[in-house]
């Protein structure tokens, strides 16, 4: 691909924040709550600790392949065929993740906000906006994320401030009554969903203008997002209690319904829904953009824009196909974290190890 688009370090950090918060803000609190019960907030903190490790791994991979994308790097290190196989697995993973994100929007809308609307209609409209973003490219997605960031922060502050009075610390006690096992089980999902999914940014790293700033921006963004996620999980557990947080499909949405300031400011859960739609939209767009980048690198295409519409049709079809109903979709939470970890962290480790064994001759001299 010629004429490389460039984003700056700040935009890269913002993209990391959006990927970390992304769809996880609404989906995640229930998953560690099912595993770890009232200790889910400890899982969230552990998730941040592991997540920093994951981010350091990714930025190391990003540094080693400076100027080349993840897929190019895979092909350099593992050779055309093995690297191509890894890239194909990555491609499928990115595509299924995008389809799952579209499906999450559809499921959320049809169960919580617009029960009469067919899910396909929501998918098609949402996918249309995503396709437009992908068509306009990375720069546009980065600037959109920059533009909406103050709004996101404002809503987040409002959300947290209004919920602080209803925290009941008794919901958190006793701490760690079931030992470390459940907490670690919860930490698997709190590591995988926000942080392991940052692997898509490995395809974005070559587009960052100042390659020296990558590690710092990456860490800052992921840390910020992780703190937000941990805060949301903490609020879910301490306000709803472990039972409701685990049973509810969208605990943070149920949480927002609890906001009640002086019997006047009520039912502002749509704020959370907006926040989630925004972060999820940026995440889906970036995922789908990375899908096209991977496709273009893998097949050595001259341009990716012609692929946007047909793969959009495929995206909508796949988002319906991947699960017959919402319960089946929720079941994926059992193994999806392991898929994130295998394809994100596992692949990075593999590339790093093989690259290390094959020596420094592969690392590029110039850091563009």
């Amino acid at each position, binding site marked *: 691909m010629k004429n490389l688009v460039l984003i700056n370090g700040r935009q890269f950090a913002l993209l990391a924040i959006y990927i970390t918060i992304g769809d996880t803000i609404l989906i995640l609190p229930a998953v560690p709550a*099912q*595993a*770890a*019960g009232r200790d889910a907030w400890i899982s969230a903190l552990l998730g941040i600790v592991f997540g920093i490790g994951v981010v350091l791994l990714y930025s190391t991979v990003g540094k080693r392949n400076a100027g080349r994308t993840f897929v190019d790097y895979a092909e350099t290190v593992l050779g055309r065929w093995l690297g191509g196989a890894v890239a194909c697995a990555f491609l499928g993973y990115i595509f*299924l993740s995008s389809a799952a994100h579209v499906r999450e929007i559809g499921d959320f809308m049809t169960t919580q906000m617009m029960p009469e609307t067919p899910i396909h209609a929501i998918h098609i409209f949402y996918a249309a906006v995503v396709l437009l973003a992908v068509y306009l490219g990375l720069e546009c997605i980065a600037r959109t994320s920059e533009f909406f960031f103050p709004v996101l922060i404002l809503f987040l502050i409002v959300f947290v401030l209004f919920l602080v009075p209803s925290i009941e610390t008794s919901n958190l006690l006793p701490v760690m009554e*079931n030992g470390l*096992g*459940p907490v*670690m*089980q919860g930490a*698997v999902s709190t590591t995988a969903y926000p942080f392991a999914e940052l692997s898509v940014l490995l395809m974005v790293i070559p587009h960052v203008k100042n390659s020296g700033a990558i590690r710092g921006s990456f860490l800052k963004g992921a840390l910020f997002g992780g703190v937000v996620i941990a805060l949301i999980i903490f609020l879910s557990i301490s306000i709803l209690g*472990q*039972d409701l947080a*685990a049973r509810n499909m969208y605990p943070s949405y149920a949480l927002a319904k609890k906001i009640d300031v002086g019997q006047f400011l009520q039912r502002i859960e749509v704020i959370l829904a907006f926040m989630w739609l925004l972060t999820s939209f940026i995440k889906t767009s970036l995922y789908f953009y990375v899908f096209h980048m991977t*496709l273009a690198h893998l*097949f*050595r*295409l*001259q*341009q990716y824009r*012609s*692929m946007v*519409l*047909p*793969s*959009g*049709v*495929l*995206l*909508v*079809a*796949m988002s*319906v*196909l*991947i*699960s*017959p109903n919402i319960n089946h979709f929720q079941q*994926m939470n*059992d*193994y*999806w974290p*392991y*898929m994130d970890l*295998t394809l994100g962290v596992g692949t990075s480790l593999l590339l790093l190890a093989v690259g290390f064994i094959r020596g420094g001759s592969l690392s590029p001299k110039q850091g563009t």
Partner: protein
Amino acid sequence: MAIVGIAAIAACICVLEVPRMWRSRQWKELGLFGFLLALGTGISVGIDLDAGLPNPMDWLAAIFRPIENLAETTFGLRRVNEG
């Protein structure tokens, strides 16, 4: 009815995209374009006809459920409340 709509959308996409690729002789792009569009349209029609298409998530589950079990038994992970 839905099939007609799907076909119409596929035709629209072809009209929009094919001439540009044809003119600049991007045959590889054209091939991939055709493949993606055929796959997408095919799956859409299959869903509409209730053709019982295989679910790719079931394949992934077949791969990753053993990994999940392995990780959980190795590290002694467990859940407090199921579902």
